[in-house]
């Protein structure tokens, strides 16, 4: 029992008496926008501090992948002869795939890597995977610039329908990437194996989408049974992005849009987006459940 007399409060606090832990959830993350931007900036700055080439390295990885794919699949396998503007086809897909895989991998490790912050900072913990996604998004911009240079040279012109598709493609990748980053980042705290499993998953993503091969190949080989292939939201994301940038770079865009793309691509993409939103809701639920135990498991 306290034996001291109550001190006269010199300070009047106009706030309710409530639990000190912040509300969690993705919506709360947007409420803490300022810290989020600082985290993203810190991540980006820290990645290139002390390195001479700095930001250049974030291009080297995707560009080297692109050259390898183009040489092996395009020239060695001869796909470049059978698919028009194959380089653009590959690179447009690569931007989306690379963004998604980066988000997934960095996001999975985000909470464990920021161990010291998580244990000292009372913020919604969704912030860390979201920050990973935003950092990957930051790197999409310069890659997009390169793509635009290539497409404009090939005779591409921006069209409103294409831009809608580009937006859809990005949105699907962002949503699914964040959802998986949420789930995996929390799971990774309890089972460090998750980050290894995600690495393996990344390989499936690289080849499960029509990036290094055109969709027409799948349509031909699995005629009538493409439903499963098209159920993968990343397929739609890649196809949408190609619809936006690759189709216009071919000699007959109107023909390519119908012949080389699956029918009703727009509605397929909308469906994919809705699926991803659903997955995000599930991921948020799962994160909330696991979040309670994260601080002590990070020790």
């Amino acid at each position, binding site marked *: *029992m*306290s*034996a*001291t007399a*109550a*001190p*006269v*409060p*010199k*300070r009047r*606090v106009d*706030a*309710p*008496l*409530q*639990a*000190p*832990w*912040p509300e969690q959830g993705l919506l709360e993350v947007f409420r803490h926008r*300022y*810290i989020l931007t*600082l985290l993203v900036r*810190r991540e980006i*700055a*820290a990645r290139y*501090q*002390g390195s001479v080439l700095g930001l250049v390295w974030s291009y080297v990885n995707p560009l080297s992948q692109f050259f390898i794919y183009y040489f092996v699949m395009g020239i060695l396998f001869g796909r470049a002869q059978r698919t028009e503007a194959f380089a653009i086809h590959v690179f447009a897909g690569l931007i989306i795939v690379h963004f998604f895989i980066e988000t997934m991998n960095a996001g999975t490790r985000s909470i464990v890597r920021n161990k*010291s*912050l998580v*244990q*000292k*900072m*009372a*913020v919604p913990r969704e912030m860390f995977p979201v920050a990973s996604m935003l950092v990957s998004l930051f790197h999409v911009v310069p890659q997009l610039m390169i793509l635009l240079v290539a497409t404009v040279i090939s005779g591409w012109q921006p069209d409103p329908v294409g831009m809608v598709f580009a937006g859809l493609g990005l949105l699907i990748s962002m949503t699914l990437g964040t959802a998986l980053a949420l789930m995996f980042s929390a799971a990774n705290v309890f089972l460090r194996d998750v980050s290894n499993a995600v690495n393996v998953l990344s390989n499936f993503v690289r080849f499960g989408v029509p990036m290094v091969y055109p969709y027409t190949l799948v349509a031909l080989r699995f005629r009538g049974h493409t439903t499963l292939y098209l159920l993968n939201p990343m397929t739609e994301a890649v196809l949408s992005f190609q619809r936006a940038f690759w189709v216009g770079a071919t000699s007959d865009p109107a023909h390519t849009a119908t012949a080389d793309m699956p029918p009703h691509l727009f509605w397929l993409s909308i469906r994919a987006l809705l699926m991803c939103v659903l997955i995000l809701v599930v991921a948020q639920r799962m994160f909330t459940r696991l979040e*309670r135990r994260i*601080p*002590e498991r990070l020790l």
Partner: protein
Amino acid sequence: MSDNRSIVVRHVSKTFTLRYHRTLKQMSVAVMRQQELTDSFLAVDDVSFTIRQGESIGLMGLNGSGKSTLLKMINGIMRPDSGKVLTRGRVAGLIATGAGFHAQLTGRDNVYLNAAILGMSEAETRRKFDDIVEFADIGKFLDSPVGHYSSGMFARLGFAVAIHVDADIFLADEVLAVGDRPFKRKCLAKMQEIRDSGTTLFYVSHAAGSVRKMCDRVLVLEKGRLTFDGPVDKGIAFLHYDDDEENALDTEEELDEEMGADI
């Protein structure tokens, strides 16, 4: 009757699970040898107390008695397994200096980051930036990467940010352990200032001398249970209760001086 309660802790308990074996191989070996796989550890055991706005509380106890865990729950980092914790207003926790300090970023960037972590908006940080830098007294190192700082500079910068947060509740966890005498003197003077402005002070320390100076009420934790809650002199006497008769209060000052904690 106005309610000036600042911190309310009601029947709070927290258990940690100690995992002895992590990999599948280790676990199967342990099962075959009939060893325990996990054990639970009750860090905080049914602790209750109420603190009013403006009080300054010292939290004392041996290492491992649950002080840091309790502090983390008040700070909002961990949640209790049972019971409830309530706070009023902005809580600034100096759980460990340099939280979020990124070694590659400059001191300047880290000040903004740390301030944001402690709840300050960008405008507020900009306003107080000069005061913070002056308090930290690290000179031209402000614009060089934090990785180059000595541990003292590190502590000074972290403390400088936290002390300027203008919080309603200020939590300090053994932060003065790092730092030389002039620094400790400065910090304690500043904490006194904060205390005088009506902020609730929650101070964790082993140094009885500084607790006596800073606080008017003491809470003692022993193995997770709250065993004492009362005036500071009685509290410190309670702590030395188990000591030999010879090691009475008159050697307390000597002990503190050895540890450099006599300020």
